[in-house]
């Protein structure tokens, strides 16, 4: 079982306590009124699918309950780092 470091609990915890929550650092539109259909489509549905380093949101569902960001390698499934939500991209 993979151990994931939760930046809030500051501990390595078993993978099954966590839930994946999609790509990280997707900013909501600042001016939603002025968004065209194409821009909404891009915001809602277009996601990166890299081979290698990927920025992701995870949630420590069965633990402290917090969302945080992680950098994971999609090839090796290794977590490079995890950091609190709101912190700059690593």
């Amino acid at each position, binding site marked *: 079982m993979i151990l994931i470091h939760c930046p809030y609990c500051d501990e*390595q915890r078993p993978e099954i306590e966590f839930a994946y929550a999609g790509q990280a650092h997707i900013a909501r539109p600042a001016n939603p009124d002025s968004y065209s259909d194409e821009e909404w489509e891009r915001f809602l549905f277009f996601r990166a699918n890299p081979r290698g380093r990927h920025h992701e949101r995870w949630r420590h569902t*069965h*633990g402290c309950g917090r969302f945080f960001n992680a950098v994971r390698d999609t090839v090796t499934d290794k977590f490079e780092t995890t950091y609190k939500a709101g912190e700059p991209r690593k």
Partner: protein
Amino acid sequence: MSDNLARTEPVPFAPFIGEGISISLAVPMTRYSLRARQAQALETLLGVKVPKKIGATEEGIACLGPDEWLLRAPAGYNMVSGAGLPVSLVDISERAICLVVEGPRSAEILRTRCPLDLDKFATGRATRTIFETVEIILLRLGEDRFHVEVWRSFAPWLWASLTTAAHH
């Protein structure tokens, strides 16, 4: 809190006693979910110190998350009112029951389906975690003494799972 004589519980009242292990139902207690952005607000309101580190416990209050605490107290505990303050105090006494897992084999039996590293889980700590598929709150009261808080509807399964592990 209802009359204890009229209570029904999802697990047997009689404790399970095995070799080096006993699993029993704890007496009913009062539980509160405390939420606040600032722990200071809770400390002022309750007049007690609130643990700041996730996983720590202090006088019946366990810190489960950065803004979440679980208060466990004897049944009949009178909670103060948080009206007008930026806190949330919710009575969750009857949401969960507590199983007491005790004896030299207690850690071994919990480890059968709980992947948490119990060697690093010192006495006095508490955390929400998972027991196979069921969410539990695990509290370590002593080297060989654990409290397992589990939602009522999951309790019969957890009881069966723990007692089965204890049989082996």
